[in-house]
């Protein structure tokens, strides 16, 4: 079809959709629809993972992000009952800060992508690394230490959240 393979077509469609939904997240006035567009964006990204043969990552992405984190997001926004007319007025200062932060983010991303050509990617069985078995072996043999450090990081965040949530600390 027009000189592209099905994979390329799917990649194009998914990319278009994820960028479009990403923009909709920013541009929609209603916070709830913003969150719903964000969920759709996550689904598109899960599709990308599937295209890269990373099934485990795709499903975990949906379970964790779409299934749990975004539910909590939606939860909070629904309870806060934000409406279009109640949108807080933004001062010039916040706008400038947002622009600077966004610009820095762009700078970092462009910089990192520019350097990616020189990066030597270690290959783990090429296209099969995304399958659960291979991924598990890689994680628990070669990257056990970073993996555990990440879990400790999450634990620290969790303890911190509990401490903030506690009313009086003795």
């Amino acid at each position, binding site marked *: 079809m027009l000189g592209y393979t099905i994979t390329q077509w799917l990649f194009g469609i998914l990319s278009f959709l994820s960028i479009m939904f990403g923009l909709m997240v920013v541009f929609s006035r209603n916070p709830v629809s913003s969150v719903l567009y964000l969920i759709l964006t996550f689904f598109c990204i899960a599709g990308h993972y599937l295209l890269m043969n990373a099934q485990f990552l795709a*499903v975990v992405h949906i379970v964790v992000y779409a*299934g749990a984190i975004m*539910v*909590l997001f*939606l939860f909070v926004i*629904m309870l806060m009952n934000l409406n279009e007319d109640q949108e807080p007025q933004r001062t010039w200062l916040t706008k400038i800060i947002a622009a600077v932060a966004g610009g820095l983010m762009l700078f970092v991303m462009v910089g990192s992508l520019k350097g990616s050509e020189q990066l030597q990617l270690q290959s783990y069985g090429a296209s099969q690394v995304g399958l659960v078995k291979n991924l598990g072996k890689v994680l628990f043999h070669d990257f056990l230490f970073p993996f555990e450090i990440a879990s400790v990081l999450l634990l620290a965040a969790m303890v911190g959240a509990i401490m903030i949530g506690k009313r009086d600390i003795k």
Partner: protein
Amino acid sequence: MLSFILYKLLVCIIIFAISLGVAAYSTLWERKFAAFLQDRVGPDRAGPKGILQPLADGGKMFFKEEIIPNVSNRFLFILGPSLFMLTALMTGTVIPWGKDFTTAAGNTYSFQITDINIGVLYLLGVVSIGVYGIMIGGWASNNKYALLGAIRASSQMISYEIAMGISIIALIVTSGGTLSLREIVESQDEGVANIVWQPLGFLIFFVCALAETNRAPFDLPECEAELVGGYHTEYSSMKLGLFLFAEYINMFISSAIMSAFYFGGYNFPFAKELYHAIGLQEGSIWISLIGFGAFFTKIIIFINVFMWVRWTLPRFRYDQLMNLGWKVLLPLSLLNLGITIVVEYFRGNIHF
């Protein structure tokens, strides 16, 4: 290739029809079963013994007035029940309903829509998306009670998913470290069913399944004493019907998953001896059909247990529900995982 696609299409349609049919007759049987437990007769007027009651209920649902609240978000209001129904039906795709069979021409067909090697994760994913139907529907109703019901549903489902996931991990350890449902069922082919090695895991899974399907004693999202009708307060006509119907489909599918995970799915004791005795060759379609029958019997027993629980136990209070989920089931499931790993190490199923 074409015959393969046609066959898969046929399997899809059959499973769709079976899901809907079982759900329809579950509604009747639920009422009948409740009646029997309460020394009553139950619906018996529509047709002989009331077997046309689901049709009458469906007809009534279709002809009821359709009400969409004026101030609600119309699109999301309709999206809610559709999404709930969609996710309920999507879970049926990875369940292995029977053994493969081989035709005379040598083609092998399976009683399953697709056997993906991350089937268990797929199930968890679909179940976790299922909550969006309730949340979107409840929010779009623009009703206090509907919103509270939706929020209850989502927090309940997220809380119980964790204990459920960990009990599934223990199950996967027992059944040889595979995420494919077919392989989990096949691993119970020779020896004993997983329930023998996972009694605690099964109990946790069962309680979590009750909570995930929003059934009593965990039906707080639609607790009529506190929340009018819960998340479907504003729904009427067939959209309400979709919500109620999807709950029964969820019940059917979770019964299927439980019997596949813990009770050997389409395997049953002395199956090989039986097939040998009546002279069936390996790969015969009759073996598949008998296996399907065994599987279905188990599913129906589980549906009855679901109903039995519903008509026995009173509803939990919300803080009790959260306490049970986080303070009892989560530590229990972690304990179960630990015990399982130790036991499996001594059985020689785990190698380091």
